[in-house]
């Protein structure tokens, strides 16, 4: 047997401070009322740092700082000068990439391989991409002289903390807005390291403000009368509440919410690569992916060999220490999320679906859930309808392409979908009929800053990435 010896990435490459303040107007400050919360490593339950919890007064100060910076510095600054700062930030993310990757893995629980090879390089790529737009906005297709909106309030989730920050901040700054961003309460640390990077890049004070905290902080931010734009990525439930709260105001809103993506495998699919795509679709980042391919729709005539190959492949997944460079599946981000995954999986058992997981030893401490598939799932099952946001795949079968489309679209969500076939015409036919914002053909979970991303139906509205992503931050 080829036993891979432990290959841990060094955690000493990043210095974690005992406590962090809020980043407002270019400085780290404590919360006005001194409130703080703790961020833990979900793989070990070890407390990593104490982080200030922003209240209404702090949010007020952050929005005021952003407003001043917008009016006095960032708004009037020529695009080519804004670009220089963005390029500088992009380079600093690359230079400090190892540090950011280790910190992301510690705070989030994701495997270091993914943080190192996906999250951090893509975050840098987003800054590079939008830096290029900053002095070319007149050519973006939004009129001769598109203007920024002003102050953007941005609330991001815990699944890709730095990457979601990049998706939000890079286009906002390129278009000339200033931002107040709230990272998720379980994963605030890379956003705070990003604040250090902003300072290192000499970004003018107040252009980027980071306020940490939980739901109340987020509410104070999006409801603040001083913001012109709200951008949120997270659950559909919270997205609805935000949409209600900004209704009737001048605030422009984009939402990127939940998903329950269908991954359709036709009988003429490239089977080995389809299996890789299924695994990547649902087990990438422990399934904490809004566009995860959480419903496998496999043509009944190949269901047996595809599932056999999938199980064989799942048995190869290495679950454990996220800092080990050979780990494929890391820790669940929080106890609360683990509880939700367990609850929905138990519902799958209770409703009569068959559960299967490969043999794998889970660590004793921390939050863990083995990669799991449910077969014999029907459209009526909760695990086929509700977003689990964990490493749990529901397998359904179909007989004809029309049935595949019908099942794929039979969900209130519409964020992403996958199609696997060696036949080009079938891929195009399918993609035309899928009601999803992103359709991947013979691949899954592929991201690129040049490509717009976003959903329809209850998966939200607005696009992030690409030229389209600028629209959300311009007065058009």
């Amino acid at each position, binding site marked *: 047997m080829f036993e891979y010896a432990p290959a841990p990435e060094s955690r000493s490459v990043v210095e974690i401070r005992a406590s962090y303040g809020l980043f407002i107007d270019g400085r780290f400050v404590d919360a006005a009322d001194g409130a703080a919360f703790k961020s833990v490593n979900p793989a070990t339950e070890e407390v990593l740092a104490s982080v200030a919890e922003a209240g209404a007064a702090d949010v007020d100060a952050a929005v005021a700082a952003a407003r001043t910076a917008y009016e006095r510095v960032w708004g009037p600054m020529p695009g080519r000068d804004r670009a220089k700062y963005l390029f500088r930030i992009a380079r600093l993310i690359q230079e400090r990439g190892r540090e950011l990757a280790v910190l992301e893995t510690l705070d989030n629980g994701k495997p270091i391989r993914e943080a190192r090879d996906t999250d951090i390089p893509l975050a840098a790529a987003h800054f590079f991409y939008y830096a290029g737009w900053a002095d070319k906005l007149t050519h973006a297709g939004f009129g001769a002289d598109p203007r920024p909106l002003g102050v953007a309030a941005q609330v991001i989730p815990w699944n890709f903390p730095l990457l979601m920050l990049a998706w939000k901040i890079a286009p906002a700054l390129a278009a000339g807005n200033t931002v107040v961003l709230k990272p998720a309460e379980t994963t605030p640390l890379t956003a705070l390291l990003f604040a250090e990077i902003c300072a290192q890049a000499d970004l003018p004070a107040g252009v980027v403000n980071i306020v940490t905290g939980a739901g109340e902080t987020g509410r104070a931010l999006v409801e603040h009368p001083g913001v012109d734009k709200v951008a949120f990525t997270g659950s559909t439930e919270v997205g609805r509440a935000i949409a209600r709260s900004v209704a009737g105001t001048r605030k422009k809103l984009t939402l990127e919410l939940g998903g329950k993506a269908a991954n359709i495998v036709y009988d*003429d699919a*490239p089977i080995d690569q389809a299996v890789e795509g299924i695994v990547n679709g649902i087990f990438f980042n422990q399934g904490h992916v809004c566009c995860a391919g959480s419903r496998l729709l496999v043509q009944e005539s190949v269901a047996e*060999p595809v599932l056999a190959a999938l199980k064989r492949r799942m048995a190869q997944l290495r679950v454990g220490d996220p800092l080990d460079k050979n780990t494929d599946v890391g820790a669940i981000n929080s106890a609360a999320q683990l509880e939700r995954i367990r609850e929905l999986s138990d519902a799958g058992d209770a409703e009569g679906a068959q559960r299967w997981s490969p043999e794998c030893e889970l660590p004793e401490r921390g939050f863990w859930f083995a990669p799991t598939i449910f077969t014999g799932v029907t459209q009526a099952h909760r695990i086929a309808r509700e977003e689990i946001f964990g490493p749990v795949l529901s397998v359904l079968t179909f007989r004809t392409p029309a049935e595949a489309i019908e099942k794929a679209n039979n969900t209130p969500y519409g964020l992403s979908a996958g199609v696997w076939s060696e036949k080009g015409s079938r891929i195009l036919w399918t993609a035309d009929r899928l009601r999803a914002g992103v359709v991947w053909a013979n691949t899954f979970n592929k991201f690129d800053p040049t490509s717009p991303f976003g959903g329809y139906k209850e998966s939200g509205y607005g696009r992030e990435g690409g030229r389209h992503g600028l629209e959300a931050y311009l007065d058009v």
Partner: protein
Amino acid sequence: MTATTTSDRSDLSELGRSEASLRAFLHGLPGVDQVGAEQRAAMLGTRSIKTTAKAWAIDLAIRMVDLTTLEGADTPGKVRALAAKALRPDPADPGCPSVAAVCVYPAMVEHVAEVLRGSDVHLASVATAFPSGQAPLAVRLADTEAAVAAGADEIDMVINRGAFLAGRYGEVHDEIVAVKAACGDAHLKVILETGELGTYDNVRRASWLAMIAGGDFIKTSTGKVPVAATPPVTLVMLEAVRDFRALTGRQIGVKPAGGIRNTKEAIKYLVMVNETAGADWLDPDWFRFGASSLLNDLLMQRTKLRTGSYPGPDYFTLD
């Protein structure tokens, strides 16, 4: 083709009887998505193999080397020296394992046989008008028989790429069957020359064709065309032997050859074997490296792990 239970094992040898059934079978194999295959191979290349795992992998890789010289300038003296190195790769360390085989042209086989006699190291010879295979079948068979008669117990043949690319699968099949017969007891490695096949779909089809025709090993390359072994090509071949065993119960070996020059690359291949075909293939009987310069890097890294420092290249023999 994917995993099938062992109860319904198929005998695919019947397929070779008709061009039409062979074509239908080969063209019915699932396609290979190029981007996906390359992405998977690249991901496996990121595995970090350290300390004890690295030491284990290096020793295994040494035992898997087909130490090769295929030059017009080969002489009896040159190949004897190579054979001596195959037996004792590191004269400074008796604990260092021997390589799997020595691989030479047919005319050199008798000289190597003298040195290897009585050892466990195999003697492989490239035959069938290597590397182009562009000679009449009778000549290629005579080439094979001569190599076996001179003492080769493994024959590395080349397939008829011209016939394969023209879609004459029956011809390729029958030629492999004929060479296999000429081999007698010698093991047959079938070189697909993947660098000339153009697509991964063709690599998959050629792999199945060679296995159906009775090859014991499938091998990527001659080392004589610009593109030799690559990780994605080897990945596709490992999937083929895995699926072939699931379907027929017969295990076939895989040999990437050409272009694998250092320990780091060799270990990436072993990771790919482990996570694709499985642990059953992690054995010199089922996986080989066709290489010449790889061995010295393996020896150097082996010494580094044991002693903590790199010896200079002059401490390793240049045979």
